[in-house]
């Protein structure tokens, strides 16, 4: 059948509105979940790219052999580290956190009234923040070696432990998002297939008549399939519009979508748009396919 023609009264369907709404909501949910997964990806990338070339060197206030280092000694050690690192061409930036910076860092915990008075008595560690051109394990271990020669107590923290934890968390959230999307799609497909089945039961005498007139399975199935496709497309468009409105609202209103502004070079926006189209398209096609399979099963049971 080339033209859009129904022999069966499929459009006179009171549950059509419900089905469109359901598909719309499900499309929206699926899109929101996918958007969240993509944001997490962007966020993880953003964090790791910001931190992976950063490391901090700590000069403990307490000697491993016992006893405390005074501020002067810590300052001296810091200067030696600074001098050693400056010869390394891979080192981009070195920042020694002085007493004032330390106090600023500690203020939230010790309270602002604590001020400098008495603070000098506190055994504060020295901190040096280093930015490298690039990082790998060899560079890190050779750096560690050189620092050990200056003083065995120096500790290097490359944030890897913290970062890998965060990234693991992002990955598992993404897996959860993918699973949710699959659940959402299956729910929709099951609902559409069920609705088609119910429709088929109501129209059974008419379907049987077409069958008796020699209408092939494809002729009959095509009508249900097209009906399911039209309903789910309407729902999908509804869902896309709702998702687009919400995402635009977030982007322009609050500006907290991390993906769009942090990762333009990674085509996050393009990927989001692609997903915005592909996901509902897949949902519609799978719905139509489910309707087809459902109707075929009923037809095959006819003589």
């Amino acid at each position, binding site marked *: 059948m080339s033209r859009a023609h129904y022999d069966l009264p499929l459009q006179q369907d009171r549950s059509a509105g419900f089905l469109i709404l359901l598909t719309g909501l499900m499309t929206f949910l699926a899109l929101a979940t996918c958007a969240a997964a993509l944001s997490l990806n962007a966020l993880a990338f953003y964090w790791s790219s910001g931190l992976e070339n950063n490391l901090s060197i700590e000069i403990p206030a307490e000697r491993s052999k016992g006893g405390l280092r005074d501020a002067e000694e810590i300052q001296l050690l810091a200067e030696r580290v600074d001098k050693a690192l400056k010869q390394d061409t891979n080192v981009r930036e070195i920042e020694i956190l002085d007493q004032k910076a330390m106090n600023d860092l500690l203020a939230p915990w010790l309270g602002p009234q604590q001020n400098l008075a008495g603070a000098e008595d506190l055994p504060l560690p020295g901190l040096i923040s280093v930015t490298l051109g690039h990082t790998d394990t060899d560079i890190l271990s050779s750096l560690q070696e050189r620092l050990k020669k200056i003083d065995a107590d120096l500790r290097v923290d490359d944030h890897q432990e913290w970062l890998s934890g965060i990234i693991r968390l992002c990955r598992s959230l993404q897996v959860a998002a993918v699973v949710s999307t699959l659940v959402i799609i299956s729910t929709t497909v099951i609902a559409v297939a069920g609705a088609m089945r119910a429709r088929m039961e109501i129209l059974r005498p008419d379907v049987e008549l077409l069958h008796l007139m*020699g209408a092939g399975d494809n002729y009959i199935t095509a009508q249900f399939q097209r009906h399911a496709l039209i309903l789910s497309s309407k729902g999908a468009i509804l869902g896309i519009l709702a998702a687009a409105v919400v995402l635009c609202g977030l982007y322009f209103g609050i500006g907290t979508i991390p993906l769009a502004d942090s990762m333009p070079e990674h085509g996050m926006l393009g990927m989001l748009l692609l997903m915005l189209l592909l996901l509902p398209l897949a949902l519609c096609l799978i719905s139509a396919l489910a309707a087809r399979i459902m109707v075929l099963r009923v037809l095959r049971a006819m003589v």
Partner: protein
Amino acid sequence: MIRFEHVGLRYGFGPEVLSDINFTLDPGSFHFLTGPSGAGKTSLMSLMYLGRHPTRGRITMYDQNVSEATRPQLAQMRQRIGVVFQDFRLLPHLSAFDNVALPLRIIGRPEKEIRAHVSELLEWVGLGDYQRALPPTLSGGQQQRIAIARAVIVRPRLLLADEPTGNLDDEIGLRLMNLFDQLNRMGTTIVIATHNQVLMDKFGHPRLLLEAGHLRVVRARGWIRRTMAEVL
């Protein structure tokens, strides 16, 4: 064209509605199927239009054993059978035009051809002014004419009509019988189930007589035709 050999039919676990039916319809033949109400005329028709499987026996149509035919083959066989159901079975949501056009759409005829043929036929059965009307808004006789138009629109090889003149007044009844005769002369094999003694006498075609599930063939006087079934 169609042959029944030892065919039996029962509904569910009920008694046999049709028992040991044997007959052959030659291509181009014209038969009346008659018998008292409840004798199984409609049931026999449903076997002939392939709407049911017999519970026993063998049905051969176009030289093919029906029970061995594939689904597409069955669909093709059904496309060449026109049926006028006793209860019409028109699709109530489709106009008279679309109801009659249905068989043509099923076999994939171009819409232009459909428009011409359907309008012409509806005109011919006296429903030219009711093409857009929905069946529930029409009288029983009008619905029956739509049903007949739908059955003949594809010029079927086999035409089965279950009491087609029941709701029609004599003039239109005769006109439709003439239509069936015309189709028959062009080669369509025809079986008409009817109680109408006047009609059967007037046209004199051989009769398939069903009584309590058994069938015998009554050759009409003055008509030389081959026996189509065994006498039981």
